[in-house]
């Protein structure tokens, strides 16, 4: 062990900064998950549609996004889109857009599996009692599907929260960026990174525990 004196005052002095950064990261993750779920749901329906062209297009979207590194997607939207004349997005919006597109591909797979796992009898029964197609989806298929896919959704929220660390690459002031800043300004390497790691870890576990409760409340009907 080398001679390293810990000086945690760096952290206490920057506590507000770090807290803001953590909340920003959480906000980015939740916003991206919400938009990503919307994209994913639409994409999942499109994927299962009888129209080959539509389901093929969604297949390409999902496979492409799953093969492309998130950082590349972020850089493409941040540096590439302005070249194409899209200039209205600031870095926060760009990041949420990138993360949502990314999450959408993953959620599409989750929802597709969820939709496919719904027993046919449910749909047939709802047809038998005379529900219209959108009523069947709204009152029968979607509620069941959400309960089935809830564990996957919460896993995705946690991994999205971890992915918000990439926002540091385009200077969004979230936790990784904050830690890097403290590291660069004060050279308190260990303090900065240990704090950031611990905060990520604790938040991820807090999310996991909270969502476990939600899952227990709305557990899938077996």
């Amino acid at each position, binding site marked *: 062990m*080398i001679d*390293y004196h810990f000086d945690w005052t760096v952290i206490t002095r920057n506590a507000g900064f770090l807290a803001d950064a953590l909340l920003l990261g959480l906000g980015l993750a939740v916003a991206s998950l919400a938009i990503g779920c919307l994209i994913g749901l639409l994409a999942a329906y499109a994927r299962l549609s009888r129209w080959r062209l539509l389901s093929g297009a969604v297949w390409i979207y999902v*496979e*492409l996004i*799953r*093969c*492309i*590194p*998130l*950082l*590349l997607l972020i*850089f*493409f939207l941040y*540096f*590439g889109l302005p*070249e*194409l004349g899209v200039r209205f997005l600031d870095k926060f919006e760009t990041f949420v857009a990138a993360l949502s597109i990314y999450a959408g591909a993953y959620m599409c797979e989750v929802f597709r599996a969820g939709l496919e796992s719904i027993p046919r009898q449910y749909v047939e029964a709802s047809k038998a009692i005379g529900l219209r197609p959108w009523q069947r989806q709204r009152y029968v298929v979607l509620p069941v599907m959400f309960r089935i896919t809830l564990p996957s959704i919460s896993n995705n929220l946690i991994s999205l929260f*971890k*992915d*918000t*660390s*990439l926002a*540091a*690459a385009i200077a969004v002031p979230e936790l*990784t960026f904050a*830690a*890097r800043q403290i*590291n660069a300004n004060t050279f308190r*390497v*260990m303090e900065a*990174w240990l704090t*950031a*790691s611990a905060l*990520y*870890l604790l938040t*991820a*576990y807090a999310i996991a525990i909270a969502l476990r409760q939600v899952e227990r409340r709305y557990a899938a009907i077996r």
Partner: protein
Amino acid sequence: MSGLGATLLSSALSIVMATVLGVLLGVALTYGWIGLRLAARLYVDVLRGIPLLVLILFTYYGLALFGVNVSAFWAGVIALGGFATAHVAENFRGAVSSIPSGQMEAAKSIGLPFVNRLRYVVLPQAFRRMLPPWVNTALEIVKGTTLLSIIGVVELLLASQQAMARNYMIIDFYLFTGLVYVAINFTLSRIGARLERRFTFARS
């Protein structure tokens, strides 16, 4: 396009490191005595709970502090490998726990010592089962190597950004880089699917 070499090399090194260490850690996680098992569990859970980027930056700045002078490339490989080790260990544990306990008991009853039980009975089955998640981890690693650009390793992403800085063909270069990643990862997942098909014969 020397960046492609760095991407492939760092991915390959990390994957090899993660596979070897991950299986060892997985054995500790599944069969180790309680202290070892808890330590392995702690390692796996901590590394899986921290974003990869934080791990890479931590390793990069932290190693220098401990007097270990490694290049950015090796710091990145260590971080990536360490991260993937946790994932492989967890995959291994999952694979082993899906093997019926009767297998282990049967091997015990014919008098095989622990190492042989592992070597001839559990591992062949476990490897077959952990192939799909292992391929996923490998894909994650290839994608994760882009994060090395942040600590200044000139891999594919940073190399193409440097090229863009020279010629301003931003869209073209990003699309091209994206295609290269898609090509690498699509090939990997195809190979994985083919291996899976080859090795599924023994599944009852």
